[in-house]
Protein backbone atom coordinates (compact mmCIF):
# COMPACT_ATOMS: atom_id res chain seq x y z
CA UNK A 1 0.00 0.00 0.00
CA UNK A 2 2.80 2.35 0.92
CA UNK A 3 4.63 1.65 -2.32
CA UNK A 4 1.44 2.28 -4.24
CA UNK A 5 0.94 5.59 -2.47
CA UNK A 6 4.50 6.68 -3.05
CA UNK A 7 4.18 5.69 -6.68
CA UNK A 8 1.16 7.91 -7.06
CA UNK A 9 2.97 10.70 -5.30
CA UNK A 10 5.96 10.36 -7.56
CA UNK A 11 3.70 10.70 -10.58
CA UNK A 12 2.43 13.94 -9.09
CA UNK A 13 5.94 15.26 -8.93
CA UNK A 14 6.79 14.57 -12.53
CA UNK A 15 6.55 18.26 -13.25
CA UNK A 16 9.95 18.59 -11.65
CA UNK A 17 13.10 17.43 -13.36
CA UNK A 18 14.22 14.10 -12.02
CA UNK A 19 12.20 11.97 -9.71
CA UNK A 20 11.58 12.62 -6.04
CA UNK A 21 12.78 9.71 -3.99
CA UNK A 22 10.83 8.16 -1.15
CA UNK A 23 12.78 10.05 1.49
CA UNK A 24 12.08 13.41 -0.13
CA UNK A 25 8.40 12.64 -0.40
CA UNK A 26 8.23 11.53 3.19
CA UNK A 27 9.92 14.72 4.32
CA UNK A 28 7.51 16.87 2.33
CA UNK A 29 4.56 15.12 3.92
CA UNK A 30 5.96 15.86 7.37
CA UNK A 31 5.20 19.56 6.82
CA UNK A 32 1.51 18.99 7.33
CA UNK A 33 -1.33 18.73 7.73
CA UNK A 34 -2.08 22.36 8.48
CA UNK A 35 -3.50 23.93 10.53
CA UNK A 36 -2.62 22.08 13.69
CA UNK A 37 -4.62 22.49 16.86
CA UNK A 38 -3.42 24.78 19.60
CA UNK A 39 -3.61 23.13 23.00
CA UNK A 40 -4.54 25.24 25.98
CA UNK A 41 -1.62 26.47 28.02
CA UNK A 42 -1.73 24.83 31.46
CA UNK A 43 0.39 27.64 32.88
CA UNK A 44 -2.29 30.16 31.98
CA UNK A 45 -5.70 29.56 33.55
CA UNK A 46 -7.12 32.20 31.20
CA UNK A 47 -6.00 30.26 28.11
CA UNK A 48 -9.04 29.67 25.92
CA UNK A 49 -11.27 31.79 28.16
CA UNK A 50 -13.61 33.93 26.05
CA UNK A 51 -13.53 36.90 28.42
CA UNK A 52 -9.73 36.77 28.56
CA UNK A 53 -9.55 36.65 24.77
CA UNK A 54 -11.86 39.67 24.54
CA UNK A 55 -9.80 41.51 27.13
CA UNK A 56 -6.51 40.54 25.49
CA UNK A 57 -7.73 41.71 22.10
CA UNK A 58 -8.57 45.12 23.50
CA UNK A 59 -5.29 45.39 25.39
CA UNK A 60 -3.30 44.40 22.30
CA UNK A 61 -4.60 47.37 20.32
CA UNK A 62 -4.64 49.83 23.24
CA UNK A 63 -1.83 52.39 23.18
CA UNK A 64 -2.76 53.56 26.67
CA UNK A 65 -0.74 50.62 27.99
CA UNK A 66 2.48 52.43 27.05
CA UNK A 67 4.12 55.12 29.14
CA UNK A 68 3.43 57.85 26.60
CA UNK A 69 0.07 56.53 25.44
CA UNK A 70 1.26 56.24 21.86
CA UNK A 71 2.61 52.68 21.51
CA UNK A 72 0.42 49.60 21.47
CA UNK A 73 1.43 45.99 21.02
CA UNK A 74 -0.10 46.34 17.56
CA UNK A 75 2.22 49.23 16.73
CA UNK A 76 5.00 46.72 16.12
CA UNK A 77 2.78 43.68 15.56
CA UNK A 78 0.54 45.23 12.94
CA UNK A 79 -1.89 42.73 11.38
CA UNK A 80 -1.70 44.41 7.99
CA UNK A 81 2.05 43.75 7.93
CA UNK A 82 1.77 40.11 8.88
CA UNK A 83 1.73 41.10 12.56
CA UNK A 84 5.16 42.71 12.25
CA UNK A 85 6.19 46.29 11.50
CA UNK A 86 8.05 46.05 8.22
CA UNK A 87 11.14 47.60 9.79
CA UNK A 88 14.57 46.01 9.94
CA UNK A 89 14.69 46.62 13.66
CA UNK A 90 11.80 47.47 15.91
CA UNK A 91 11.00 50.95 17.10
CA UNK A 92 8.99 51.47 20.25
CA UNK A 93 9.76 54.37 22.55
CA UNK A 94 13.33 53.89 21.34
CA UNK A 95 15.26 51.77 18.85
CA UNK A 96 15.35 48.04 19.56
CA UNK A 97 18.20 45.83 18.43
CA UNK A 98 16.15 43.14 16.75
CA UNK A 99 13.59 42.59 14.05
CA UNK A 100 10.00 42.29 15.23
CA UNK A 101 8.94 38.65 14.96
CA UNK A 102 5.43 37.93 13.80
CA UNK A 103 2.93 36.70 16.37
CA UNK A 104 1.12 34.56 13.82
CA UNK A 105 0.92 31.01 15.22
CA UNK A 106 2.98 32.08 18.21
CA UNK A 107 1.05 29.73 20.48
CA UNK A 108 2.91 26.84 18.88
CA UNK A 109 6.30 28.06 20.11
CA UNK A 110 8.28 26.50 22.96
CA UNK A 111 10.39 29.58 23.71
CA UNK A 112 9.60 33.20 22.98
CA UNK A 113 11.59 36.12 21.57
CA UNK A 114 14.59 35.64 19.30
CA UNK A 115 16.71 34.53 22.24
CA UNK A 116 14.05 32.54 24.10
CA UNK A 117 14.09 34.82 27.12
CA UNK A 118 10.53 33.86 27.98
CA UNK A 119 9.25 30.34 28.58
CA UNK A 120 5.55 31.09 28.20
CA UNK A 121 3.46 33.21 25.90
CA UNK A 122 2.03 35.12 28.85
CA UNK A 123 5.40 35.96 30.36
CA UNK A 124 6.63 37.09 26.94
CA UNK A 125 3.50 39.20 26.45
CA UNK A 126 4.11 41.32 29.53
CA UNK A 127 7.77 42.06 28.73
CA UNK A 128 7.31 44.71 26.02
CA UNK A 129 4.94 46.59 28.33
CA UNK A 130 7.72 47.20 30.83
CA UNK A 131 10.70 47.33 28.46
CA UNK A 132 11.90 50.97 28.43
CA UNK A 133 12.64 50.77 24.70
CA UNK A 134 9.26 49.35 23.78
CA UNK A 135 6.27 50.55 25.82
CA UNK A 136 8.10 51.75 28.91
CA UNK A 137 5.20 51.25 31.32
CA UNK A 138 4.84 49.39 34.61
CA UNK A 139 2.55 47.05 36.47
CA UNK A 140 1.13 50.00 38.37
CA UNK A 141 0.36 51.74 35.09
CA UNK A 142 -1.40 48.67 33.70
CA UNK A 143 -3.44 48.32 36.88
CA UNK A 144 -4.57 51.94 36.63
CA UNK A 145 -5.57 51.62 32.97
CA UNK A 146 -7.57 48.44 33.47
CA UNK A 147 -9.29 49.66 36.65
CA UNK A 148 -10.23 52.99 35.09
CA UNK A 149 -11.86 51.53 31.99
CA UNK A 150 -15.26 50.03 32.77
CA UNK A 151 -15.19 47.59 29.85
CA UNK A 152 -11.66 46.39 30.59
CA UNK A 153 -12.38 46.07 34.31
CA UNK A 154 -15.55 44.12 33.64
CA UNK A 155 -13.84 41.75 31.21
CA UNK A 156 -11.01 41.36 33.69
CA UNK A 157 -13.44 40.31 36.39
CA UNK A 158 -15.07 37.78 34.06
CA UNK A 159 -11.71 36.42 32.97
CA UNK A 160 -10.02 36.13 36.34
CA UNK A 161 -12.95 35.95 38.74
CA UNK A 162 -11.95 39.06 40.67
CA UNK A 163 -11.94 42.76 39.86
CA UNK A 164 -8.60 44.22 38.79
CA UNK A 165 -6.48 45.11 41.77
CA UNK A 166 -3.64 47.46 42.49
CA UNK A 167 -0.87 44.93 42.93
CA UNK A 168 1.63 45.67 40.19
CA UNK A 169 2.98 42.19 39.46
CA UNK A 170 -0.48 40.64 39.52
CA UNK A 171 -1.82 43.30 37.15
CA UNK A 172 1.09 42.71 34.81
CA UNK A 173 0.74 38.94 34.87
CA UNK A 174 -3.00 39.09 34.30
CA UNK A 175 -2.53 41.48 31.40
CA UNK A 176 0.07 39.09 30.02
CA UNK A 177 -2.27 36.14 30.40
CA UNK A 178 -5.14 37.97 28.71
CA UNK A 179 -2.84 39.03 25.88
CA UNK A 180 -1.64 35.43 25.55
CA UNK A 181 -5.23 34.16 25.44
CA UNK A 182 -5.85 36.53 22.53
CA UNK A 183 -2.57 35.71 20.78
CA UNK A 184 -3.43 32.02 20.89
CA UNK A 185 -6.23 32.89 18.46
CA UNK A 186 -3.91 34.63 16.01
CA UNK A 187 -3.47 31.76 13.61
CA UNK A 188 -2.62 31.57 9.97
CA UNK A 189 -4.65 29.50 7.56
CA UNK A 190 -3.93 27.22 4.71
CA UNK A 191 -1.55 27.99 1.91
CA UNK A 192 -0.86 26.81 -1.63
CA UNK A 193 1.77 24.50 -0.22
CA UNK A 194 -0.75 22.91 2.17
CA UNK A 195 -3.05 22.11 -0.74
CA UNK A 196 -0.10 20.56 -2.59
CA UNK A 197 1.05 18.60 0.44
CA UNK A 198 -2.42 17.24 1.13
CA UNK A 199 -2.84 16.31 -2.52
CA UNK A 200 0.37 14.29 -2.27
CA UNK A 201 -0.86 12.65 0.91
CA UNK A 202 -4.06 11.43 -0.69
CA UNK A 203 -2.41 10.60 -4.01
CA UNK A 204 -4.32 13.20 -6.01
CA UNK A 205 -1.91 13.86 -8.85
CA UNK A 206 -4.26 16.28 -10.59
CA UNK A 207 -4.58 18.52 -7.57
CA UNK A 208 -0.85 18.32 -6.85
CA UNK A 209 -0.06 19.41 -10.39
CA UNK A 210 -1.84 22.71 -9.80
CA UNK A 211 0.99 23.74 -7.48
CA UNK A 212 3.38 25.86 -9.57
CA UNK A 213 6.28 23.93 -11.07
CA UNK A 214 8.85 26.35 -9.67
CA UNK A 215 7.46 25.88 -6.16
CA UNK A 216 7.53 22.11 -6.64
CA UNK A 217 11.18 22.26 -7.59
CA UNK A 218 11.82 24.56 -4.66
CA UNK A 219 10.05 22.18 -2.27
CA UNK A 220 12.26 19.31 -3.37
CA UNK A 221 15.35 21.48 -3.13
CA UNK A 222 14.27 22.51 0.36
CA UNK A 223 14.24 18.96 1.68
CA UNK A 224 17.17 17.81 -0.43
CA UNK A 225 19.26 20.63 1.06
CA UNK A 226 18.16 19.55 4.53
CA UNK A 227 16.58 22.92 5.32
CA UNK A 228 13.87 20.81 6.93
CA UNK A 229 16.26 19.61 9.65
CA UNK A 230 15.75 22.90 11.48
CA UNK A 231 12.65 24.19 9.69
CA UNK A 232 10.76 21.00 10.41
CA UNK A 233 7.18 19.93 10.81
CA UNK A 234 3.94 21.71 9.95
CA UNK A 235 5.15 25.00 11.47
CA UNK A 236 8.51 24.81 9.66
CA UNK A 237 10.53 25.28 12.85
CA UNK A 238 12.07 23.05 15.48
CA UNK A 239 11.53 25.79 18.05
CA UNK A 240 15.17 25.77 19.08
CA UNK A 241 18.22 27.93 18.47
CA UNK A 242 20.97 27.93 15.87
CA UNK A 243 23.85 30.00 14.64
CA UNK A 244 23.37 30.37 10.89
CA UNK A 245 26.24 32.72 10.29
CA UNK A 246 24.46 36.01 10.74
CA UNK A 247 26.88 38.42 12.44
CA UNK A 248 25.97 39.29 16.01
CA UNK A 249 27.97 42.50 16.36
CA UNK A 250 25.70 45.46 17.06
CA UNK A 251 28.32 48.13 16.57
CA UNK A 252 30.00 50.40 19.09
CA UNK A 253 31.55 47.40 20.79
CA UNK A 254 28.22 45.76 21.53
CA UNK A 255 27.25 42.22 20.60
CA UNK A 256 23.95 40.39 20.59
CA UNK A 257 24.73 37.20 22.51
CA UNK A 258 21.43 35.62 21.47
CA UNK A 259 20.51 32.40 23.19
CA UNK A 260 23.23 32.47 25.84
CA UNK A 261 21.78 35.73 27.17
CA UNK A 262 18.24 34.42 26.71
CA UNK A 263 18.94 31.44 28.96
CA UNK A 264 20.35 33.70 31.66
CA UNK A 265 17.30 35.91 31.45
CA UNK A 266 14.72 33.16 31.53
CA UNK A 267 16.37 31.59 34.55
CA UNK A 268 16.38 34.94 36.36
CA UNK A 269 12.86 35.87 35.29
CA UNK A 270 10.50 36.11 38.25
CA UNK A 271 7.69 35.43 35.81
CA UNK A 272 9.10 32.16 34.51
CA UNK A 273 7.32 28.83 34.72
CA UNK A 274 9.23 27.85 37.85
CA UNK A 275 7.83 30.82 39.72
CA UNK A 276 4.60 31.41 41.61
CA UNK A 277 2.70 32.96 38.71
CA UNK A 278 2.41 29.80 36.67
CA UNK A 279 -0.99 28.14 36.95
CA UNK A 280 0.47 24.71 36.15
CA UNK A 281 0.71 23.09 39.55
CA UNK A 282 1.88 19.81 38.04
CA UNK A 283 5.08 21.48 36.81
CA UNK A 284 4.78 19.61 33.53
CA UNK A 285 5.20 22.60 31.25
CA UNK A 286 8.20 23.82 33.24
CA UNK A 287 10.30 20.80 32.31
CA UNK A 288 12.02 22.84 29.59
CA UNK A 289 12.91 25.61 32.04
CA UNK A 290 14.22 23.19 34.64
CA UNK A 291 16.49 21.48 32.15
CA UNK A 292 17.55 24.10 29.63
CA UNK A 293 21.32 24.31 29.42
CA UNK A 294 23.63 26.95 28.04
CA UNK A 295 26.79 25.92 26.26
CA UNK A 296 29.54 27.70 24.38
CA UNK A 297 27.47 27.12 21.26
CA UNK A 298 24.57 29.13 22.69
CA UNK A 299 26.42 32.38 22.02
CA UNK A 300 25.11 33.96 18.84
CA UNK A 301 22.30 31.49 18.42
CA UNK A 302 18.81 32.73 17.58
CA UNK A 303 15.49 30.98 17.39
CA UNK A 304 14.59 29.15 14.22
CA UNK A 305 11.69 31.16 12.82
CA UNK A 306 8.70 29.57 11.21
CA UNK A 307 8.77 29.90 7.44
CA UNK A 308 5.03 30.33 7.20
CA UNK A 309 3.81 33.74 6.02
CA UNK A 310 7.23 35.01 5.02
CA UNK A 311 5.50 36.83 2.19
CA UNK A 312 4.07 39.20 4.78
CA UNK A 313 6.96 39.53 7.20
CA UNK A 314 9.96 41.09 5.44
CA UNK A 315 12.66 41.98 6.30
CA UNK A 316 14.33 38.81 7.52
CA UNK A 317 16.74 37.41 10.11
CA UNK A 318 16.92 38.40 13.76
CA UNK A 319 18.38 41.77 12.87
CA UNK A 320 16.28 42.32 9.76
CA UNK A 321 19.36 42.57 7.56
CA UNK A 322 17.76 41.05 4.47
CA UNK A 323 15.07 43.06 2.72
CA UNK A 324 13.86 40.28 0.47
CA UNK A 325 13.40 36.54 0.52
CA UNK A 326 15.87 36.33 -2.33
CA UNK A 327 18.49 37.98 -0.12
CA UNK A 328 17.78 35.52 2.68
CA UNK A 329 18.04 32.51 0.37
CA UNK A 330 21.26 33.91 -1.06
CA UNK A 331 22.64 33.99 2.48
CA UNK A 332 22.38 30.21 2.65
CA UNK A 333 23.67 29.85 -0.88
CA UNK A 334 26.82 31.81 -0.12
CA UNK A 335 27.11 30.93 3.54
CA UNK A 336 30.38 32.05 5.02
CA UNK A 337 31.24 29.15 7.31
CA UNK A 338 34.06 31.19 8.80
CA UNK A 339 31.45 33.46 10.34
CA UNK A 340 29.75 30.61 12.10
CA UNK A 341 30.72 30.18 15.68
CA UNK A 342 33.43 27.57 16.07
CA UNK A 343 30.99 25.50 18.07
CA UNK A 344 28.33 26.05 15.44
CA UNK A 345 26.12 23.76 13.47
CA UNK A 346 28.24 21.41 11.37
CA UNK A 347 25.25 20.71 9.18
CA UNK A 348 25.50 24.12 7.54
CA UNK A 349 27.29 24.31 4.23
CA UNK A 350 26.95 26.85 1.42
CA UNK A 351 24.16 25.62 -0.85
CA UNK A 352 25.84 27.18 -3.92
CA UNK A 353 22.55 27.61 -5.69
CA UNK A 354 22.15 28.61 -9.30
CA UNK A 355 19.99 31.68 -10.01
CA UNK A 356 17.24 29.34 -11.16
CA UNK A 357 17.42 27.34 -7.95
CA UNK A 358 17.20 30.54 -5.92
CA UNK A 359 14.07 31.43 -7.89
CA UNK A 360 12.63 27.99 -7.14
CA UNK A 361 13.32 28.19 -3.42
CA UNK A 362 11.80 31.66 -3.27
CA UNK A 363 8.71 30.39 -5.12
CA UNK A 364 8.40 27.58 -2.58
CA UNK A 365 8.82 29.89 0.41
CA UNK A 366 6.29 32.36 -0.98
CA UNK A 367 3.82 29.48 -1.32
CA UNK A 368 3.91 29.06 2.48
CA UNK A 369 2.06 32.35 2.90
CA UNK A 370 -1.60 32.55 3.85
CA UNK A 371 -2.99 35.50 1.86
CA UNK A 372 -5.58 36.13 4.59
CA UNK A 373 -3.09 36.29 7.44
CA UNK A 374 -3.00 40.09 7.33
CA UNK A 375 -6.66 40.54 8.07
CA UNK A 376 -7.51 42.49 11.19
CA UNK A 377 -9.53 40.26 13.49
CA UNK A 378 -12.96 41.42 14.51
CA UNK A 379 -13.23 42.75 18.03
CA UNK A 380 -14.66 39.93 20.16
CA UNK A 381 -18.02 40.63 21.83
CA UNK A 382 -17.78 42.55 25.08
CA UNK A 383 -19.80 39.85 26.85
CA UNK A 384 -22.13 42.34 28.48
CA UNK A 385 -19.25 44.52 29.59
CA UNK A 386 -19.89 47.43 27.29
CA UNK A 387 -20.01 48.38 23.63
Amino acid at each position, binding site marked *: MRQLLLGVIAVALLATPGRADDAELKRLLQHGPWPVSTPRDPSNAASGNAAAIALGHRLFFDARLSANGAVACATCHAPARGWTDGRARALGLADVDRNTPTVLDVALHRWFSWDGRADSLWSQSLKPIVDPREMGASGEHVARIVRADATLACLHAKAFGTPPGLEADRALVQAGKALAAFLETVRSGRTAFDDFRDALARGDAGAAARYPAAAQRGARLFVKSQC*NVCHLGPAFTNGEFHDVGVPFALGAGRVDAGRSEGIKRVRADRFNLLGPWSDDRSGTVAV*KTRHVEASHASFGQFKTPSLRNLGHTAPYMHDGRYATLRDAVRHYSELDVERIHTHGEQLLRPLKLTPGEIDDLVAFLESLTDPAATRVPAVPPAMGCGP
Partner: protein
Amino acid sequence: MEERRGPVRYALSVTLVALLIGAAAVEACELPAGFTPRGRLESAGVTVVFRTLPPAIELGRHFAVEALVCGDGASPVLTRVDAQMPEHRHGMNYRPTLAGQGNGRYLAEGLLFHMPGRWELSFDVEAGERRTRLVTDVVME
Protein backbone atom coordinates in the same frame (compact mmCIF):
# COMPACT_ATOMS: atom_id res chain seq x y z
CA MET B 1 36.25 6.29 29.90
CA GLU B 2 35.64 3.09 28.07
CA GLU B 3 32.91 3.41 25.49
CA ARG B 4 30.79 0.47 24.50
CA ARG B 5 28.26 0.83 21.76
CA GLY B 6 25.16 -1.24 21.96
CA PRO B 7 24.33 -3.48 19.06
CA VAL B 8 21.10 -1.68 18.47
CA ARG B 9 19.96 1.01 16.10
CA TYR B 10 16.37 1.80 15.77
CA ALA B 11 13.98 4.23 14.24
CA LEU B 12 11.69 5.37 16.97
CA SER B 13 9.28 6.83 14.48
CA VAL B 14 8.50 3.30 13.45
CA THR B 15 8.66 1.46 16.76
CA LEU B 16 11.48 0.19 18.85
CA VAL B 17 10.93 -3.43 18.26
CA ALA B 18 14.41 -4.12 16.98
CA LEU B 19 15.76 -3.91 20.46
CA LEU B 20 13.02 -5.41 22.48
CA ILE B 21 14.37 -8.13 24.63
CA GLY B 22 12.83 -10.95 26.50
CA ALA B 23 12.56 -10.86 30.23
CA ALA B 24 14.80 -13.87 30.49
CA ALA B 25 17.70 -11.91 29.04
CA VAL B 26 17.63 -9.38 31.83
CA GLU B 27 16.74 -11.49 34.78
CA ALA B 28 19.76 -10.21 36.61
CA CYS B 29 18.24 -6.73 36.60
CA GLU B 30 15.03 -7.97 38.17
CA LEU B 31 12.66 -5.99 36.03
CA PRO B 32 9.82 -4.50 38.04
CA ALA B 33 6.29 -5.35 37.06
CA GLY B 34 5.13 -3.36 34.08
CA PHE B 35 8.64 -2.41 32.98
CA THR B 36 8.76 -3.14 29.28
CA PRO B 37 12.34 -2.58 28.21
CA ARG B 38 13.12 -0.77 24.99
CA GLY B 39 16.76 -1.57 24.86
CA ARG B 40 19.55 -3.42 26.58
CA LEU B 41 23.19 -2.44 26.56
CA GLU B 42 26.04 -4.49 27.91
CA SER B 43 29.63 -3.86 28.66
CA ALA B 44 32.01 -6.07 30.58
CA GLY B 45 30.10 -6.82 33.72
CA VAL B 46 27.57 -4.01 33.35
CA THR B 47 24.08 -4.14 31.92
CA VAL B 48 21.75 -1.20 31.32
CA VAL B 49 18.14 -1.92 30.50
CA PHE B 50 16.06 1.10 29.65
CA ARG B 51 12.73 2.34 28.48
CA THR B 52 11.56 5.77 27.40
CA LEU B 53 8.60 7.65 28.79
CA PRO B 54 6.52 8.04 26.75
CA PRO B 55 7.45 4.91 24.82
CA ALA B 56 7.55 6.71 21.45
CA ILE B 57 9.95 9.64 21.31
CA GLU B 58 8.68 12.58 19.28
CA LEU B 59 10.85 15.28 17.78
CA GLY B 60 10.55 18.43 19.83
CA ARG B 61 8.88 16.74 22.79
CA HIS B 62 10.49 16.19 26.14
CA PHE B 63 10.84 12.62 27.28
CA ALA B 64 12.32 10.67 30.14
CA VAL B 65 14.48 7.57 30.29
CA GLU B 66 14.01 4.99 33.00
CA ALA B 67 17.00 2.70 33.39
CA LEU B 68 17.91 -0.36 35.37
CA VAL B 69 21.60 -0.89 35.97
CA CYS B 70 23.06 -4.12 37.18
CA GLY B 71 26.31 -5.98 36.96
CA ASP B 72 28.84 -8.29 38.40
CA GLY B 73 30.98 -7.38 41.37
CA ALA B 74 30.92 -3.77 42.56
CA SER B 75 27.48 -2.24 42.46
CA PRO B 76 27.30 -0.16 39.30
CA VAL B 77 26.03 3.40 39.59
CA LEU B 78 24.47 5.33 36.74
CA THR B 79 25.99 8.82 36.82
CA ARG B 80 24.70 10.44 33.67
CA VAL B 81 22.31 10.03 30.77
CA ASP B 82 22.90 12.25 27.77
CA ALA B 83 22.58 12.39 24.00
CA GLN B 84 24.61 13.78 21.14
CA MET B 85 24.35 14.20 17.37
CA PRO B 86 27.88 13.25 16.28
CA GLU B 87 27.43 14.30 12.66
CA HIS B 88 26.25 17.75 13.76
CA ARG B 89 28.76 17.93 16.61
CA HIS B 90 26.22 19.04 19.17
CA GLY B 91 24.15 17.60 21.93
CA MET B 92 20.77 18.43 23.31
CA ASN B 93 19.88 21.92 24.46
CA TYR B 94 18.77 20.43 27.76
CA ARG B 95 20.67 18.73 30.56
CA PRO B 96 18.77 15.76 31.93
CA THR B 97 18.40 15.39 35.66
CA LEU B 98 19.06 11.95 37.05
CA ALA B 99 17.42 10.54 40.14
CA GLY B 100 18.10 7.19 41.73
CA GLN B 101 15.01 5.26 42.71
CA GLY B 102 16.64 2.37 44.55
CA ASN B 103 17.55 -1.16 43.54
CA GLY B 104 19.58 0.02 40.55
CA ARG B 105 16.68 1.91 39.06
CA TYR B 106 17.09 5.47 37.74
CA LEU B 107 14.93 8.12 36.11
CA ALA B 108 16.46 10.68 33.76
CA GLU B 109 14.14 13.55 32.90
CA GLY B 110 14.36 16.51 30.56
CA LEU B 111 15.66 14.97 27.34
CA LEU B 112 14.56 16.49 24.04
CA PHE B 113 15.65 15.67 20.49
CA HIS B 114 15.18 18.82 18.44
CA MET B 115 16.46 17.64 15.08
CA PRO B 116 15.95 14.59 12.89
CA GLY B 117 18.94 12.37 12.32
CA ARG B 118 21.13 10.05 14.34
CA TRP B 119 21.37 10.65 18.04
CA GLU B 120 23.63 8.76 20.38
CA LEU B 121 21.93 8.08 23.69
CA SER B 122 24.58 7.44 26.32
CA PHE B 123 24.64 5.99 29.82
CA ASP B 124 27.67 6.63 32.04
CA VAL B 125 28.14 3.94 34.64
CA GLU B 126 30.65 3.69 37.44
CA ALA B 127 31.41 0.35 39.03
CA GLY B 128 34.18 0.64 41.58
CA GLU B 129 37.12 2.24 39.78
CA ARG B 130 35.75 1.39 36.38
CA ARG B 131 33.86 3.91 34.31
CA THR B 132 31.95 2.80 31.27
CA ARG B 133 29.89 4.65 28.71
CA LEU B 134 27.24 2.56 27.03
CA VAL B 135 25.86 4.08 23.86
CA THR B 136 23.01 3.28 21.56
CA ASP B 137 21.78 4.95 18.41
CA VAL B 138 18.40 6.56 18.09
CA VAL B 139 17.47 7.64 14.59
CA MET B 140 14.78 10.28 14.51
CA GLU B 141 12.95 10.80 11.24
